[in-house]
């Protein structure tokens, strides 16, 4: 009896002790975080002008633009707090139409069903193009036969019917050599995939499925780089960073010219149809009632900040397009641009 109660008391003490250690460790760690916050918060008190939170979510493609803008904007306006999430274009709209965010990034225009969701929730929005991206079709540097492809040829390679049948470069064009095609592309959740399939195969999301796909475009880069017959596509920034290791193909545009993707051709629209606009959508109510949101939107559309867009690998809007974006916002032009 005595033994049992002693053992019991000792164990209970040990147990209590261990839980208090755990709790202490937890408190210390959390407390440390808290202490940091107050230290970090102090310099912000010196700021003037707008203040408050700005909630952004949406496309991971557009994220670097928001990140760069937010970083600089917060230096200029230290009392604002901008947070940017990456739920993807679709996930972003879900939160946006749920009223959770002020601004939603998208690498494609808002879809009609998303417009309907927003309408049902009473969320009015303004669509604002912010930059261009050129979807770049790349091959390995060893590929010395292909220079320029037409959209029809891309369609022959990527259409759903090509699955299992188009497997060789000589099926794309007769003069191409007998070299197996090794295809790489982004995953089906990506806005790049949506845009490419829409332009090349005529229907968003329609694509052959027997290619190596990855949500991480760096995987596509490595894949194409290492196979002679490789072909892949992704945003221009990934090509710009790997220019020496990959070869970009020219694409025959609507005027029948072969155009290579460059900052200029993407911006002036001659690299069509593979040049796409990137958007952000701002909630009308937030723009009207929150000065910090208004200030941030104006900051994004300031021509002086176009450098930030270019720095993160995208093509800034030409001045007149930027002015048009600004005009949309100033007029409060609601809804999706039908054009």
């Amino acid at each position, binding site marked *: 009896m005595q033994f*049992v109660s002693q053992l019991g008391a000792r164990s209970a003490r*040990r147990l209590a002790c261990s839980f208090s250690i755990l709790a202490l460790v937890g*408190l210390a760690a959390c407390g440390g975080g808290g202490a*940091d916050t107050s230290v970090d918060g102090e310099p912000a008190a010196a700021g003037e002008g707008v203040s408050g939170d700005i909630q952004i979510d949406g496309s991971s493609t557009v*994220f670097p633009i928001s990140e*760069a803008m937010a*970083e600089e904007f917060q230096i200029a306006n230290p009392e604002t707090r901008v947070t940017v999430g990456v739920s993807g274009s679709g996930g972003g709209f879900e939160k946006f139409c749920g009223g959770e965010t002020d601004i939603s990034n998208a690498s494609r225009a808002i879809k009609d069903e998303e417009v309907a969701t927003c309408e049902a929730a009473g969320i009015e929005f303004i669509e604002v193009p912010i930059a261009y991206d050129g979807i770049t079709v790349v091959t390995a540097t060893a590929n010395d036969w292909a220079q320029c492809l037409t959209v029809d040829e891309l369609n022959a390679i990527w259409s759903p019917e090509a699955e299992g049948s188009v497997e060789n470069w000589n099926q794309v064009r007769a003069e191409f050599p007998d070299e197996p095609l090794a295809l790489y592309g982004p995953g089906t959740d990506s806005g790049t995939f949506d845009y490419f399939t829409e332009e090349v195969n005529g229907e968003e999301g329609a694509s052959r499925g027997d290619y190596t796909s990855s949500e*991480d475009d*760096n995987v596509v880069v490595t894949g194409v780089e290492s196979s002679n017959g490789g072909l892949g596509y992704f945003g221009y920034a990934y090509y710009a960073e790997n220019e020496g290791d990959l070869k970009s193909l020219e694409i025959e545009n609507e005027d029948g010219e072969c155009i290579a993707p460059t900052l200029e051709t993407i911006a002036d629209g001659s690299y069509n149809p593979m040049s796409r606009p990137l958007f952000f959508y701002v909630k009308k109510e937030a723009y009207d009632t929150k000065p910090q949101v208004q200030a941030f939107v104006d900051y994004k559309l300031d021509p002086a900040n176009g450098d930030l867009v270019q*720095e993160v690998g995208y093509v800034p809007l030409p001045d007149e397009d930027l002015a048009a974006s600004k005009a949309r916002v100033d007029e409060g032009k609601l809804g999706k641009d039908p054009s």
Partner: protein
Amino acid sequence: MKTDVSSRVVDKGQKQSHFTANLGSRYTIDRIFKYAAWGATGVSILILVWLLVTIVADGIGTLNWNFITSFPSRRAENAGIIAALVGTVWVMCLVALFTVPLGVGAGIFLEEFAEDNWFTRLVEINIGNLAGVPSIIYGLLGLAVFARIMQPITGGRSVLSGSLTLSLLILPVVIVSTREALRAIPNSLRLAGYALGATRWQVIWSHVLPAAVPGILTGVILALSRAIGETAPLIAVGAAVFISFLPEGLQSQFTAMPIQIYNWVGRPQEEFHYIAASGIIVLMAMLLVMNGVAVYLRNHFQKDF
């Protein structure tokens, strides 16, 4: 020993002439199996070492105090992990706070109190199933319940919503490991307690639970180690990626290390890949500390029994 066995086998063989000992080939099979097991261990260790070496080689160059104390930036050389690091510490503290009492409590109930009837069996089957549900499903649940319905309490896309979501994710694991730890305690300990007139509660609290603590702690830490690496549910709940302040309270917005690392890995610029590796080193260091604490506590308790 070896000759002893073989001589006996040979004796037996003389009586039953159709039996051949064939020891040579038996020992060969023995050896082959041993080398195969060695090989399996070696391959897994090699892969681990290779992974560690490449990560450390990539990340050590950019791992410095500035990286630890800076907020994210568009420029890799200015970017740091402080927001994600503190966010992860917050989330882990809260997850431990929620799951330990709930998970251990549920485990005790199911193992020590519950009768074996259809209801208990239904609960057991469901817990087993829940442990296998993909984490993104918990993320969507967390978005709907914690971030939306309970928005007035959790503050929406907050560190509290994220922690509650991850708590749900690892709760089944904690419950199952608590039950296993309790089951491993010999029944004689309980019976001895009852025989001396102790109540059920006294027996569990003073005898069974202390003896089971090492096992429970192992389970809890393993579960937390799973939670610390989760990205998808936190993204679904609405954790940010760019955030330049630290959580100030339960309702504050936050980010976590795996999200930050995932974002850096996917960037086109190679410099971001290096700081992603640095981030992984920080994450691994944190995991190592957690596991170290667990091992220490386990040894501490095992001395008693």
